């Protein structure tokens, strides 16, 4: 039973539609942004167990992507290099807003010729504070407090709606994340082994691996 979007993709015969089985969760905290993505990556009968789907664009920005593996790697690296080029050329880093809109623009530019089948979450901290941007493979862009990609969003968004508050600390953010993963553990068809979590603050990016079987709430 596919959702309408998938059936449209199959109909138009897109090369490999965004399969939605992967999960990406983004939560905006008080002075940081937390993004967690599952570490499995599969296509046909082959599976990778330790994929890092979150690219660090610079010290204070991260870009998480789910979707077709090749597009994900190529697109994220392309964005990362362009963000870097801007900073070197102009002696000034891009703001999160600038980076997000640039990314969306690139998606939109490619959409009618060779689209990138990736759904993205961009999180960053700059002088305007922490921001989380949600982008999908059709080049939409939204600035949100929390966001989820994939079928798991059907479960997790309710949890986040109920328990999210403005100004959460990093520990509270992790607790909220564990609540979400617990929901998936209980009800989601796909069994995720682990999540890679990256938290970006003014000081930089911290990386943690969260094993799903250790999540007890």
């Amino acid at each position: 039973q596919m959702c309408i979007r998938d059936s449209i993709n199959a109909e138009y015969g897109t090369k490999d539609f965004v399969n939605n089985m992967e999960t990406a969760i983004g939560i905006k905290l008080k002075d940081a942004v937390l993004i967690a993505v599952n570490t499995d990556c599969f296509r046909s009968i082959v599976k990778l167990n330790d994929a890092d789907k979150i690219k660090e664009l610079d010290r204070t920005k991260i870009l998480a992507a789910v979707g077709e593996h090749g597009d994900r790697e190529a697109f994220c690296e392309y964005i990362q290099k362009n963000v870097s080029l801007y900073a070197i050329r102009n002696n000034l880093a891009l703001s999160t807003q600038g980076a997000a809109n640039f990314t969306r623009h690139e998606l939109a530019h490619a959409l009618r010729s060779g689209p990138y089948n990736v759904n993205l979450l961009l999180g960053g901290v700059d002088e305007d504070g922490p921001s989380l941007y949600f982008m999908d493979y059709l080049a939409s862009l939204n600035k949100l407090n929390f966001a989820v990609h994939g079928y798991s969003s059907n479960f997790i968004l309710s949890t986040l709606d109920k328990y999210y508050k403005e100004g959460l600390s990093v520990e509270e953010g992790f607790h909220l994340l564990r609540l979400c993963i617990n929901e998936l553990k209980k009800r989601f068809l796909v069994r995720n082994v682990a999540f890679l979590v990256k938290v970006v603050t003014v000081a930089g990016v911290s990386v943690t691996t969260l094993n799903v079987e250790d999540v007890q709430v």
Partner: protein
Amino acid sequence: VSTQSTGYKVGFWATCCNSLHILSPFTVMARRYDSRTTIFSPEGRLHQVEYAMEAISHAGAAIGILTNEGIVLAAEKMITSKLLEQGTSSEKMYKLDNHVACAVAGITADANILINYARLATQRFLFSYQFPMPVEQLVQQVCDLKQGYTQYGGQRPFGVSFLYAGWDKHDGFQLYQSDPSGNYGGWKATAIGKNNSNAQSILKQDFKEDMTLKDAQQLAVKVLSKVMESTTLSSEKLEFGVLTRQNNKTVFRSLTKKELDELIKSTTIENTDAK
């Protein structure tokens, strides 16, 4: 002199010097190397670029002064005939985006091309990044275009110098000057066009770091009056533009005739008082 030259001819100087039987500032050898933009002279100069700057030195003066409250751009309008319909369009000042404006000295037709290019650049940037283009980046883009015409294509350089006045979040108020070579610099106060060296030296003397916008406007009037050909200064011959921040927005405004008249009056009064 090669007849296939597409650039500026040394005609005027050559004629003068020939008739007066003196050496021109450009050596005779220069003539052979000045018709192509894309080659150096034996002395290591790009003559077409220099001739372009010479053309600009015949154009109406433009001055820019930077203060903490904003930037003043002042220009002399070259009114060739009373029959000219002045209207609302400007010949010296142009808005490039909501937060950047420029003053022009040189060949108006060339300037129009570059201004259109600059405006496209600002909007392209805004379209992609969704924040206003930093002023220095815009200046660099225009200058890179100008530089291209000094190195390849076989086309003459643009005969225009610009004064860019703008505000951005990172560097605040900024004033830049660019010339046909594609070089640019950031300035506190500068002048381009006719008698710009005179104007520059007056600015150097009288510019103060913490001037108010009002002071800067009066200084601009003073400098222009000393540098313009006509003895009497009137608002018809001037164009004044002021770039300021109001309510968290950058505003570029041309002064009205009335404001200009008042400004000229107040400046001359102060000068006579000082005497």
